[in-house]
C-alpha cells in the first residue's frame, strides 16, 4: 500500500522519540565512540597508556588468530543459518496449515528453548553429548562406536546443533506471525481457482515470508558473528574440544580485554567486527529486498 496522503511534519514527534534517543545515545552511540577512542591507544602493564594511532588496526589485520575466528563464524553462518531457517519455515507452515492437533502446545514447546539461557542450554547439551556418561557415551557403548561430539573436528557441529535447537523456535514465530498476516480470503480465492495446498504454499505463503526471511537472516548473521556463550563454557565441561581463546571473534575480544589487558586492541577488534557484520547484513538486506513486493 503506497502512502496516499502527505504527512505533515510536526516537532511534537521529536518529544516522543526523545527518551529513546537519549537512551540510544547513552548505551549505543557513546560506547561506540568510546571504543573508537580506546582503539587508538595501547595500555601497557609497564609504561601506561600511550597513543598509538591506527597501530591496533594494522596489527589486527595481520593477526592470524583473528582471521581464524572470523573464518569459523563465517563458515558456521553459511551452514547453520540455512538449516535453521528452512526448519523454522517448515514448522511455521505446518502450524499455519491448521491441520495439526495441539498446535498451541507445539508452538510453545518449539519456542521454549529460546527462553532457556545459553549458559543453561550449553550445560545441558554438554551433559547430553558427553562421551563418558552422557547420551553419546551410552550410544557408543551400545553400538560399539567411538564417536565424540566434542572432538576438535566436530565441536563446531555440536555447537551448531545447540544453536539450532535454541533459535529455531524464535525464527518460527516470526514466520508464523507473517503467515498470520496473510488475508484468509486469498486462500479462499485460490481454492476457488482450483489451487491445491502446495500451490497455495508456493504462490501465496512463501512470497509472504520473503520480508521476514530477510529479517531472520540478518538477525541470525548478527547472532552467529557474536557467538560467545557456547565456546566460553564448553572448555570447562569437556577436555580438549578444540575451543581456543580465539575461537570466535567475540570470545577473542573478551579474552584480549580481560585476561590480556589489551583493551585498545580488543576495541579495535570489536569495531572491525561491527563493520564486517554491518556490511554483510546490509548486503543481505539489499539483495533480499530487491524486487520484493510491498517493501
Amino acid at each position: 500500500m503506497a502512502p496516499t496522503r502527505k504527512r505533515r511534519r510536526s516537532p511534537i514527534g521529536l518529544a516522543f522519540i526523545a527518551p529513546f534517543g537519549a537512551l540510544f545515545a547513552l548505551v549505543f552511540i557513546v560506547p561506540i565512540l568510546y571504543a573508537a577512542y580506546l582503539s587508538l591507544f595501547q595500555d601497557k602493564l609497564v609504561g601506561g597508556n600511550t597513543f598509538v594511532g591506527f597501530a591496533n588496526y594494522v596489527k589486527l589485520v595481520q593477526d592470524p588468530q583473528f582471521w581464524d575466528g572470523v573464518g569459523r563464524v563465517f563458515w558456521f553462518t553459511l551452514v547453520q543459518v540455512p538449516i535453521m531457517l528452512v526448519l523454522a519455515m517448515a514448522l511455521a507452515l505446518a502450524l499455519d496449515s491448521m491441520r495439526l492437533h495441539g498446535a498451541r502446545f507445539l508452538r510453545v514447546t518449539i519456542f521454549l528453548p529460546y527462553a532457556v539461557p545459553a549458559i543453561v542450554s550449553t550445560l545441558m547439551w554438554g551433559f547430553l553429548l558427553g562421551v563418558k556418561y552422557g547420551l553419546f557415551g551410552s550410544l557408543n557403548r551400545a553400538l560399539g562406536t567411538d564417536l565424540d561430539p566434542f572432538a576438535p573436528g566436530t565441536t563446531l557441529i555440536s555447537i551448531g546443533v545447540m544453536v539450532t535447537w535454541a533459535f529455531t523456535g524464535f525464527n518460527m514465530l516470526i514466520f508464523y506471525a507473517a503467515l498470520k498476516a496473510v488475508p484468509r480470503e486469498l486462500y479462499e480465492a485460490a481454492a476457488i481457482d482450483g489451487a491445491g495446498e502446495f500451490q497455495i504454499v508456493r504462490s501465496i505463503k512463501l512470497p509472504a515470508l520473503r520480508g521476514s526471511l530477510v529479517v531472520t537472516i540478518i538477525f541470525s548473521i548478527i547472532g552467529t558473528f557474536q557467538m560467545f556463550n557456547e565456546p566460553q563454557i564448553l572448555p570447562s565441561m569437556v577436555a580438549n574440544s578444540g575451543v581456543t581463546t580465539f575461537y570466535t571473534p567475540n570470545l577473542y575480544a573478551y579474552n584480549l580485554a580481560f585476561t590480556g589487558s589489551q583493551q585498545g586492541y580488543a576495541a579495535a577488534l570489536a569495531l572491525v567486527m561491527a563493520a564486517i557484520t554491518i556490511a554483510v547484513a546490509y548486503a543481505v538486506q539489499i539483495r533480499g529486498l530487491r524486487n520484493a513486493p510491498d517493501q
Partner: protein
Amino acid sequence: MRLSHKLRLLSAALAPMLALTACSGGGSGSGSGGSSTGGGAEQAKITVWSWDGTVEKAVAGFQAANPNITVEVVNAGSSQDEYKALDNAIQAGSGVPDLVMFEYFAVPYFAVPGKLADLGELGVDKLKQDFVPAAWSDVTVNGKVYAVPSDYGPSAMFYNMSTLKKAGIEKPPATWDEYYEAAKKIRALGDDYYIAQDTGDIFFLLSLIWQAGGRPFKVDGTKVHIDFTDPGTTRAVAFWQKMLDEGLINTKITGWSDDWNRTLNDGTLATQTMGGWLTSTLPERAPKAAGDFRVALMPQWEQGAKTGAANGGSSFGIPAAAQHKEAAFKFLEYFAHGGGLSTRVDAGAFVPNMSVLENETFQGKANPYFGGQKVGAVLAEASEIVGSGWQYPPFFEWARSIYGDLASPFYTTGQGSLAEVLEQWRQRCIQYGNEQGFEVS
C-alpha cells in the same frame, strides 16, 4: 583529557556490579574526606572483595574490637572475574575496594604497574616471621611486600586407598619412580582405571617442575627471563611426557568437570596431586568415596628426600587507590594473623601461619572423610617443605589462559611433545611481555 575521564566514569556506572560498589565507596568517603588515614578514632567503612567464605567469619570479632571501622565483605566473583572487576574499577577511578583477594600468581600482575599499595609502609614486616617462607616470597615482588598470605595450597597427593589395594599396592608411592610403577598396576585394573588425569593443567605441571628444582621464571623488576631447559624443569617434563606417552594418564577427563567428579566417586581415578585445598572440596566432589581417600606428601624425586611445591593459594592486598588503607590493613592483620585467624581455621581455612601449622590441636585433628587421618599434620609438613625461590611472571594470568590453546593439540593427538608446547608458550610469553613493556627473554 577531562572528557575521557568522564567517559570512563560513565562506563563504570553502566556496569551494574560496579555501580553497586561505587555506591558503598561513595558513602565511605564522607567520614575521612578521602584521605588515607582511616585508622585512629575516625569512622571508616571498608569494602573487602573476597571469595573466601572464612574471611567474612572474622568480621564480627574485628568490629567488636574496632567499633569505628565497619567492614563490608563483597564477593565480586572468583579469580579472573574479580581481577577484571578490579581492573575496571581502577581504570574508572571509582568503586575501588579497600582490600582485595588475589591468588599468589596474580599479585605481581597488579603490583608491577603500581596498582597495589606497598604494605611495608603500613608495617607488614613485623608479620613475616610467622608465615611459611615460600608463601611470604609469593607475595613479595621486587623486594617489597604487596599482600598478606591468607590461605595456602601446598601440593599433596590425595590417593584412593581401596583402588591402590585393588591394584596390589600396599603403600602410597613415595617417589615418582614408585608412582610410575603404581600407574602401570592401576592401568592393568581395567579400561577406565588411571592413576591420574591431565588435559593440560599448567598448575600441576608447574608444581612438578617446582618440586624438581626447576625455576623457569626469573623476575627482576620489569626484566623477566623464561627458560624451560634447566635441569629441574627438563627432568619433570620428561617424566610427565613418559607417563602420557605410555598411556598411564587419562587425557579425556578434564578437572572440575562432571566426569571428573564421577571418576573420583567410583574410584577409577586413583590419585590427584594437588593443592592442600582439595581437602575441603573433595568431600563435596566425591561423597561416595568417603573413607577411601588419604593424603600423603607429593612423591619425591629422590628416595628419602623431602621437597614440596605449592599449587594455588591466595592472599589479600590493598589497592593503591583504596581510600582507607590503614583501616584495611588493620582488618587484614586481624584475619590473616591476629585474633580472627582461629575463627577462620575453625571454619576450614588452611593457612600458612606457623602458629597454626605447628599447633598440636590443628595437627592432631582427625578428619572423618579421610578415614580419621590427621590431615592437618600431613599438610603442615607439606607447607614447610615447599621449595623456595619460585616466581611467577607478572603476566601469568594471561599466560595461563593461552596455555590451553597450545597444549590442546598435543593432548588430543599425542603428536609433538610437552617440551615443544612449553617452547611455543615461551615464545608467546616473550612476545606478549615485550608488547606490555617488560623486557622478556
